[in-house]
């Protein structure tokens, strides 16, 4: 008769299946909380250790990402005093939304409206995200890269839902400004002299 699988083997395999794949998103959460690469790594390690030790408290069928994010956040707040961000954010959602529309119109007028399908913008997008101010970079990474909902990002960052939205929309507009300018500078606008070399370098394969 085969020996029954020890409880710990089932536990470990479930933890490996459900929790370990979430390391990238928890790393992003940790970075958003700590704003320090080394501290973020420490927080990720501590989060997974706590999660493993308390895996029996995880409710099967519930969202492991939310559970792990809560552990990360609680660990962070328990371990250190969080610096308050002093921001000069204009919380006008309409302003940012319609600014994005104006940017689209500019892109259309300059002939780079389809730049996202024609150009390999990956490096430019990463550089633009890295160049954002931290409070904007955090929300873009959590919502647009890691696909967190507004409410989840608000929980992680400890900020109101409205602040998530206003920072996110402003960050998106700032990114689009940089990318539209990048496309124009690369010579892909139809109002400039055609530059085959730059097209060859930047076009998608």
């Amino acid at each position, binding site marked *: 008769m085969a020996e029954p699988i020890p409880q710990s083997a089932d536990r470990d395999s479930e933890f490996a299946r459900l929790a370990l794949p979430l*390391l990238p998103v928890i790393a992003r959460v940790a970075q958003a909380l700590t704003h320090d690469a080394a501290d973020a790594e420490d927080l990720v390690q501590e989060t997974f250790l706590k999660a*493993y030790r308390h895996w029996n408290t995880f409710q099967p069928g519930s969202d492991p990402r939310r559970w792990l994010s809560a552990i990360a956040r609680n660990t962070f707040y328990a371990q250190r005093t969080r610096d308050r961000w002093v921001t000069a954010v204009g919380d006008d959602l309409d302003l940012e939304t319609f600014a994005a529309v104006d940017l*689209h119109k500019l892109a259309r007028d300059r002939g780079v409206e389809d730049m996202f399908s024609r150009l390999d913008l990956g490096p430019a997008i990463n550089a633009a995200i890295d160049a954002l101010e931290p409070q904007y970079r955090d929300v873009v990474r959590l919502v647009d890269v890691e696909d967190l909902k*507004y409410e989840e990002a608000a929980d992680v960052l400890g900020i109101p839902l409205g602040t998530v939205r206003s920072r*996110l929309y402003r960050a998106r507009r700032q990114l689009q400004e940089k990318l539209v300018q990048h496309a124009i500078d690369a010579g892909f606008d139809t109002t400039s002299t055609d530059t085959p070399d730059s097209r060859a370098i930047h076009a998608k394969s």
Partner: protein
Amino acid sequence: MQNPEVCREIVRQLWPYLDGALPDELQVSVSEHLSMCTNCRSHYDFQAAFLDAVRASANLGDQFEPLRARVLAALAAEGMSLP
């Protein structure tokens, strides 16, 4: 011809619409308008393409490998049987 005020209201909802953050009824209303209004649809297409490009730009696998190795080592020291 679309009502400019309606279009303005639809455009105000584009980001939360793309993020799936609108109430169901409003999500449906925006969808219906976008199916009929080419101008608003072009704004939607541009913003959707932008968000797709941002998501596609994420390079998650390689950059987290050292951290993953560190976390796995810590879990192994805790007694976890690694996969």
